């Protein structure tokens, strides 16, 4: 993942163009209490075969970003003009008709959610739903769709796939349901998979299996995956790149190794220090001081300044830090961290 600024350089050099590019995304919600800014000036990109992890706590805007790609946000959402979400050379934000959106939803992009029951209609058999989804996006007949679906169920590690094909969602256990949801999402061979907290609700032993599954799928199909979670451990094991979000802004991004071993933004540092690590039982847990501000009370200047130990009066509460290069691939949005440009 590279910054927008270095985009042109890489494009001319690389063989693969970016699968997904988000430029200048600003998302606002109209609520009774006023307009809430959910995503602020977001730049992201992703190549085929890459896993990008988006990490953040509540209010960070990570889910909203993913849903914006599929235009799944609720009706009171405003995408400010100037923002672009480009998949395969088309700006998804410009799509208005359902026909155009259908190309992305389930076709080029698939999404899996935290709650597997949310994907499956409770009164329709799983197999029927999978076939229905396939028929919507591919011009194949029912029999072929059924074969593809059962094959997919097998590949995600569901034993007795034929039997499961004819079952209802509530007849499967949590882990199996999640795997079935992944099977359904993958059966249309999307180019991009959005995973919104897919393992948060699962037991840790099942989580490990699902993560392994996602990794092998990425390798086999060279899909791009955006993995949203609050769990840095999952990111460390699954993602190639990570973007850390706070209150709608990306505060730090870069390769996973670099960010975890050498974090620069105070929020990222704070998160890592607050995390209990099984391998280091002696380290004390240092919480990040303060509370996450409510979206109605966005701090001025740098959104993190109310909780930051590097806070400088007159600078951090006035100027808004842009995402700048700290090193080759590593970008930070902090006024107190020296970067290439400074």
């Amino acid at each position, binding site marked *: 993942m590279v910054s927008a600024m270095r985009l042109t350089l890489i494009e001319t050099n690389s063989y693969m163009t970016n699968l997904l590019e988000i430029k200048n995304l600003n998302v606002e919600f109209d609520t*009774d*209490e*006023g307009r809430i800014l959910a995503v602020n000036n977001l730049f992201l990109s992703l190549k085929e075969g890459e896993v990008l992890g988006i990490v953040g706590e509540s209010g960070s805007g990570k889910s909203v970003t993913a849903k914006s790609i599929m235009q799944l946000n609720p009706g009171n959402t405003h995408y400010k003009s100037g923002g672009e979400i480009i998949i395969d050379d088309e700006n998804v934000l410009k799509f208005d008709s359902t026909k155009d959106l259908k190309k992305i939803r389930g076709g080029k992009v698939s999404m899996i959610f935290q709650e597997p029951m949310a994907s499956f209609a409770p009164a329709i058999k799983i197999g029927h739903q999978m076939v229905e989804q396939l028929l919507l996006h591919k011009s194949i007949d029912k029999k072929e769709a059924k074969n593809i679906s059962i094959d997919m169920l097998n590949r995600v590690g569901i034993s007795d796939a034929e039997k499961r094909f004819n079952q209802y969602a509530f007849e499967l256990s949590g882990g199996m349901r999640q795997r079935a949801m992944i099977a359904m999402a993958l059966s249309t061979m999307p180019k991009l998979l959005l995973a919104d907290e897919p393992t948060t609700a699962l037991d840790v032993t099942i989580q490990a299996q699902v993560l392994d599954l996602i990794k092998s799928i990425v390798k086999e199909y060279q899909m791009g995956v955006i993995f949203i979670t609050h769990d840095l451990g999952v990111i460390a094991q699954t993602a190639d790149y990570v973007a850390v979000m706070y209150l709608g802004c990306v505060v730090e991004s870069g390769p996973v190794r670099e960010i975890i071993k050498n974090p620069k933004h105070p929020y990222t540092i704070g998160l890592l220090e607050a995390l209990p690590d099984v391998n280091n039982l002696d380290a004390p847990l240092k919480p990040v001081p303060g509370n996450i501000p409510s979206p*109605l009370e966005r701090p001025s200047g740098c959104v993190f300044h109310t909780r930051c130990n590097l806070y400088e009066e007159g600078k951090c509460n006035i100027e808004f830090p842009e995402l700048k290069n700290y090193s080759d691939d590593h970008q930070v949005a902090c006024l107190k961290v020296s970067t290439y440009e400074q």
Partner: protein
Amino acid sequence: MEISSKQKEAYFTATQMQLVTTRFFANRAAMIAGSILLFMIVISLFSGFLSPYDPTIAGRDKEYENGSPQIPIFWDHNGFSFRPFLHSKTKYRGADTNFRWVYKVDTENRRYITFFPKGWEYKYFAYNINLPGKNLDFRIPGLTFDRHLFGIDSGGIHLFGTDKAGKDLFSRTLNAIYISLAVGTLGVFISFVLSLIIGGIAGYYGGWIDGLCQMFTDAVRTIPPIPLFMCLAAFAPDTWSSELRFFFIATLLGFIGWPTLARRVRTHLLTERSQEYILAAKLCGASSTHIIIRHLLPSFTSYIIVDLVISFPYMLLSETALSFIGLGLREPVNSLGVLLQSATKADVLLNYQWYFLPVLFLIILILSFVFVGDGLRDAADPHRNK
């Protein structure tokens, strides 16, 4: 949008009730409906004062039967007048009208509207109940007034026209609103008490008691209401006074309407009972009484108020329907249903269209209840906050 810290503190220290009322006041549709509703309730309570004529047969105007509405005017070809007035009408029948009675307007003769005249007597809190058989009839003399808002110096003033017998439709409509609301209130009250008891027991104890109450509730609910009403209403002897009949119909409505409310009460209780803060209270050794009073009752007051307001229109409609088919309230008691009954003939449709004016009031009344109920429900619904 800058919110001052004072406003923020006010929000933080606001009780649940205050939050609900604030949200309700912010809902424009609900506020408009609420004001209309309030207006209608007030005019119904003051129906005696506002009606120039007695809505029963005693107040009929023999000179002006089936008369069209008379709107007071301030100006005619003779000039302007501060006092509103009406022209006289004389009955006339002749060959040119096919021997039907029509009214001719005499534009020279003015009759001026009077304000606060004395008129027919109307009573408040006067009850005269004759219970069948026993010597338990009681009478409360009540308060009597005879002032009215407006009248006319001679002849009659009929803002909504009159019916076949000459009864003033305006007075009848006001009185009907009052009666319909009263029957509705009583019916809702009775069904509320019943559903609170049965739904409350079912919801609080759960288990087999719940199962039993549920079976009973469902059994009552599956009885088709219209045949049931018809049977029970037909059972009421004609000798009963109109007040007695009134109480009877209201009680009937209450007894038929409780299952829906009971189910809601039970659901609320079951949900609240399994909330974790109830368990927290139990773990302190709180008694059932404490839990009910301190936790369950307050949590459910807002829901119950919403449910009550929402069930009102059903009561109204049921009473209207019953009276309309002749099984509910009857003449001389007015209710919106009774008034509608006389509007069914083809004659009326063609010639006396003003008979439909009460329908307008019924629609407005029901719609305002529905909007207020919706507004209350939106204001009280906790899901909005999450």
